[in-house]
């Protein structure tokens, strides 16, 4: 029993606890450096084709399986924690739409893998197990053990890319945080990123898929920085001779869009009218010009401007129609002409409509 009186015993205990501490997860994952993304595989993989001439590529912000439930953070709702049944019902709608469109590669935003708000359902694994897609890469945008606000609790939301072919490389590239928040809010807030994956596509040695979800509510130039860094990443791939399909929820409207101000109809009853987060795009006329000029858009800008409403992909107005286009797909090769679809019929699945298009595989 002398051992308990001995200070060496206490030192040993302290050392053991310190070692265990080193294995503990940080309270907030800060992702300051470029790092590997997390890889997933479907429970049962389906053999993908060994040669293809075209691919179907899809982009979708799936709103963490919340469907059209009035969640407090992105609509004028009061819901915070969804039930498992609600999330699974919405995920089933998402999977049904994916299975209907049959994409070969899908770029996703707002995927939850371990969040209290979405009943802790691993949506990456669930989508892989319920679609024909085999492989996935995931990059957290918001990974916090416990957010002490609004009952949010544990959060892990991110960007994802799902593919029928194996993902051989997956990198999470950090984007700068919002510049218009205080330190405490920023500490618990989102860490946006670019997710870049290399896909083992038959006969195309350097093929990448890239997705991003840029800042939604910043009132400074954070979103522009994100778009510029996204384009810089695509430029680097292009200069290296790689092929890419890229896209995501860029949270701004296209150049030339007739409407750029949505703050009046999007104002919640108890909201400050001067709070113009995520609804005023009047100063962003040129922010996407570089992407449109240097790369092929799934929806060519002339087509978009000729019939804007047909291409709208987002609305926070639960009773109304789609309001604006925020979701995009670009490539440095060619899309199959007129193969794009903006699936506005999927209005029950999310506050964003998916976009799909056929991509010509370089021969």
């Amino acid at each position, binding site marked *: 029993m002398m051992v308990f*009186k001995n200070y060496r015993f206490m030192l040993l205990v302290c050392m053991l606890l310190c070692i265990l501490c080193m294995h503990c997860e940080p309270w907030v994952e800060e992702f300051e450096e470029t790092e590997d993304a997390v890889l997933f595989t479907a429970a049962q993989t389906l053999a993908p084709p060994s040669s293809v001439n075209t691919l179907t590529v899809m982009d979708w912000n799936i709103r963490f399986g919340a469907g059209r439930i009035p969640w407090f953070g992105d609509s004028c709702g009061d819901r915070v924690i969804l039930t498992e049944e609600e999330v699974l019902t919405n995920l089933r709608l998402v999977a049904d739409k994916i299975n209907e469109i049959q994409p070969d590669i899908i770029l996703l935003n707002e995927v939850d893998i371990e969040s209290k708000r979405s009943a802790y359902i691993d949506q990456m694994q669930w989508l892989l197990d319920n679609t024909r897609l085999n492989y996935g890469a995931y990059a957290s945008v918001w990974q916090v053990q*416990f957010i002490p606000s609004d*009952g*949010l609790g544990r959060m892990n939301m991110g960007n994802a890319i799902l593919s029928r072919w194996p993902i051989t490389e997956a990198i999470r590239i950090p984007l700068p945080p919002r510049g218009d928040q205080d330190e405490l809010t920023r500490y618990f807030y989102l860490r946006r990123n670019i997710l870049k994956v290399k896909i083992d596509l038959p006969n195309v040695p350097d093929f990448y898929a890239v997705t991003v979800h840029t800042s939604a509510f910043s009132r400074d130039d954070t979103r522009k920085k994100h778009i510029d860094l996204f384009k810089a990443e695509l430029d680097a791939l292009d200069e290296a001779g790689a092929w890419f399909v890229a896209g995501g929820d860029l949270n701004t409207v296209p150049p030339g869009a007739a409407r750029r101000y949505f703050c009046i109809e999007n104002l919640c009853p108890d909201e400050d009218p001067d709070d113009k987060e995520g609804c005023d795009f009047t100063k962003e006329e040129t922010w996407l010009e570089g992407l449109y000029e240097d790369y092929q858009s799934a929806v060519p800008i002339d087509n978009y401007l000729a019939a804007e409403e047909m291409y709208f992909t987002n609305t926070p107005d639960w009773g109304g129609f789609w309001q604006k286009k925020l979701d995009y797909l670009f490539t440095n090769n060619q899309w199959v002409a007129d193969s794009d679809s903006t699936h506005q019929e999927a209005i029950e699945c999310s506050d964003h409509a998916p976009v799909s298009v056929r991509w010509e595989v370089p021969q």
Partner: protein
Amino acid sequence: MKKTNFLTAGILFLLITPCTVTGQLPEIEDGIWSSGTAFPVQAGRLEFGIFMPAAYGLSESLELTTHLLPNIYMPNAGLKWSHGSVGPYQWATRHSIYYPTPLLNLVAKEGIGGLISPEFTIPDMLAVHNEMMLTRAWDPHLLTTLKLGVTVAFGSGDLDPRSTIDLPLVFPRLSVFYNTYSIRTGLNFQGRIFFRWHYHMATDLFFLPGAEEGFAFEQTAFLLWRKNPRFQSGFGCKLTYAEYPFGTQWHLIPVFDTQWALQIKK
């Protein structure tokens, strides 16, 4: 390790190891700080700290306890009742009651500080905890205490299972309100290392029979500097492992406390 192994090991340790000392101990004579042992606070003595519960010796065998600060929003009280000694063992029972509804409703709010979503209403709930404590003094500087208790919760309505606070220390203690009852057991060691430095180590196990998230483990290591029988201060850490709605997780949490004692009545 199987969950029950911790408990089995603790019981065996307590019973098999031979007794080396009998009689009143310096650890106790120094003015024992009652927390974690079957010894009650001396009659008329009040102990209170920042985080540790305040304890007052009502008599030689009864001690009244309460967590002072949480009382504002979580009324709570306890009674430790010493039943004297049986052979080398000092034994006591502890009976406590707490009403967490006002505190939980306070943190079920919008914005910062909202640990529970405001969409949930917390019904009136009450928990009663009854515990047996068995302390054995091994030598002048080591006390070992085995604890075994049951908590039973009563509520005026259904508590939404999504309203849990999935945090270490908090989740295992509030889980009883989602499961009606829980079992808690543990083993404490405390004693002197040298001079004024003391240690306190505690292992606590929480069981919620039938619940999906039915187990939690906490290991506390605490180093205390005891200036005199009226003041002590210390720091340490708490290693926790628990089953949460999202899975299992370890945490290492720094802890500290400062305690004072007053002899109110001779």
